[in-house]
C-alpha cells in the first residue's frame, strides 16, 4: 500500500481486477462503463467490498444504494465516499 496513490486509484485497482470481457480480456473502462456490459455481478461486488474493507480497514454497509449502482463511476464514487467518511 502506498500513500502516493489516490484513494480513487487504489479502489479502481481493486475493482478492475474483477472485470473481464466475455473473451477473458480486460476491456477499455470509463466511468460510464455499465456494470452489466463488463459482467460485474453481485457476487463480484461482494468480493470488491471485502477487499476494500480489508485494504482501508473500514466497514461498508450494504444498503438499498448498492442495488442502484449501474456504472463503474457509481461504484467508485460509492466506495470512495465510504472510505472518506470513515477515514476522515
Amino acid at each position, binding site marked *: 500500500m502506498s500513500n502516493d496513490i489516490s484513494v480513487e486509484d487504489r479502489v479502481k485497482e481493486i475493482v478492475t481486477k474483477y472485470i473481464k470481457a466475455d473473451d477473458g480480456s480486460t476491456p477499455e473502462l470509463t466511468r460510464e462503463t455499465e456494470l452489466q456490459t463488463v459482467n460485474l455481478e453481485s457476487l463480484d461486488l461482494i468480493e470488491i*467490498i*471485502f477487499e476494500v474493507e480489508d485494504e482501508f480497514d473500514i466497514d461498508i454497509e450494504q444498503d438499498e444504494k448498492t442495488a442502484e449502482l449501474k456504472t463503474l463511476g457509481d461504484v467508485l464514487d460509492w466506495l470512495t465516499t465510504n472510505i472518506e467518511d470513515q477515514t476522515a
Partner: protein
Amino acid sequence: MHRVVITGVGTISGLGPNLNDSWNAALSGKTAIGQLDIPSIQPLRQKLAAQIHSYKPEDHFSAGELALIDRFSQFIILSGREAIADSGIDFSTDIAEETAVLTGSGLGGWETINESAKKVFYDQKPRVHPFTVPKIMPSAGSSHLTMEYGITGPAFTISSACSSSGHAIGEAFEMVRRGRVKAAVTGGGEAPLIYGGIIPWQALRVMSSTACRPFCKDRDGMILGEGAGMLVLEEYEYAKSRGARIYGELCGYGLSSDAGDIVDPSPDGAAKSVRKCLVDAQLNPEDVTYINAHGTGTTANDRTETSAIRQVFGSAVDDVWVSSTKSLHGHALGGAGAIELALTVRALESGILPPTVNFTEADEECQLRHVANEPVETKVKAVISNSFAFGGLNATLAIKAI
C-alpha cells in the same frame, strides 16, 4: 436389481496426479511419504506425510475459481474430470438427468476453516473472505462437479470420517442398482495437510515418525496423506449399449457400526462389514483373490482388521492376498476409500496386486498372506476394499471381473 459396472476411474494423491502415474508408482514401490512441507507457526513434531508436492492449483483453476474452491474440492474435481473422461460418458445427453454425484469427505474445507480462524483469532481481523462458507461446505466438491458437467440427478456428500468415500461409493452403487439413477460419479477427497490439521492428529499420538508399515511387528503408526479418488458407475445395460469399456462389476457393499468406542475399533464390527459385503456380492471367501485393507499402520487397526479377516475367511484366509496401499499414499481420511478403490480396480483389471511397502516382518497378531514390498501377479477373480472409521463406522466394497 440392476448390475452395476465401473467404467471410469480417476485419482490424485502423493503417488501421482492421475491413475496411471499413481499405479506405476505403486507397483514400483515408490512411497509418496516424505518430508511434510507446509507453512507453520510453531515447529511441528510430525515431519512425515504423503503430500502432493508438485500440485499447483493455478494450473487447473482460474483465480476466480480458486477464491471459491477449497483444496479438498479441487482434488475431487480433478479426479472427477479424470474419471469422467476415462469413462467416455457424455453428459451433454439425457444421461445427465439420471446421474448421481455422491462424494465423501470427513473434514470438508479444513484449509479454509483454518485460514479464516487464523484471520479472526490470530490476526484479529474483523472479516473473512466472502466465499468462506461455500468453500468450507463438505458437499462443495459434489456441487462443483454437477455444475461443471450439468448433472442434475441426486447429489450430496457423506461424512463418516475415514469411511466417508467408502460409504459414498456404496450408496451410489445402491442408487444405480435400485434404478434410481443410471449412472453415478462417486468417490471422495480430503486435504488435511495444513498446520491446524496436523496438530490435532499429533495430539492423538497415532502418527509414525519413521514410515507407514501396516501389519508389521515394528510398525509405529499411521501417516497422513491428501488427495481424492473418483469413479464412474453405470448400470450394466446402459454401459454396454454405449459401448463403454468396463473395468469390473461393483457387486457388493457391506456396512456396520461397532457401537463400541469413538477411537478404538472392534473386530466384530469390522468382520460384520466384510461378511455382509460378501453375502451381498454372493461371493464365497475362496472367490476373493485380494483384500485392499484399511491397514492404517496403527496397532489398534491392524490387529482388529486381521482378526476380522480371519473370522470371515476362516480356512480360506491362507489363500487371500492382503495389502495396505496406505503405506504408499498415506491416509487421506475421507478420501482414502476412494483412492484405494481406484488402485483396487486397476489390480482387478491387470491381475497385479499392489504391495504394502516398508514391510519388515508381520506382527504375530497380523498374520495374513501379505503382498509384501513387491507386487504379486495372479489371476484376479474378485477383490474387496475395507474402510473402517473412527467412531466404528465400517464399509466394505466388492468388485469382480465381468
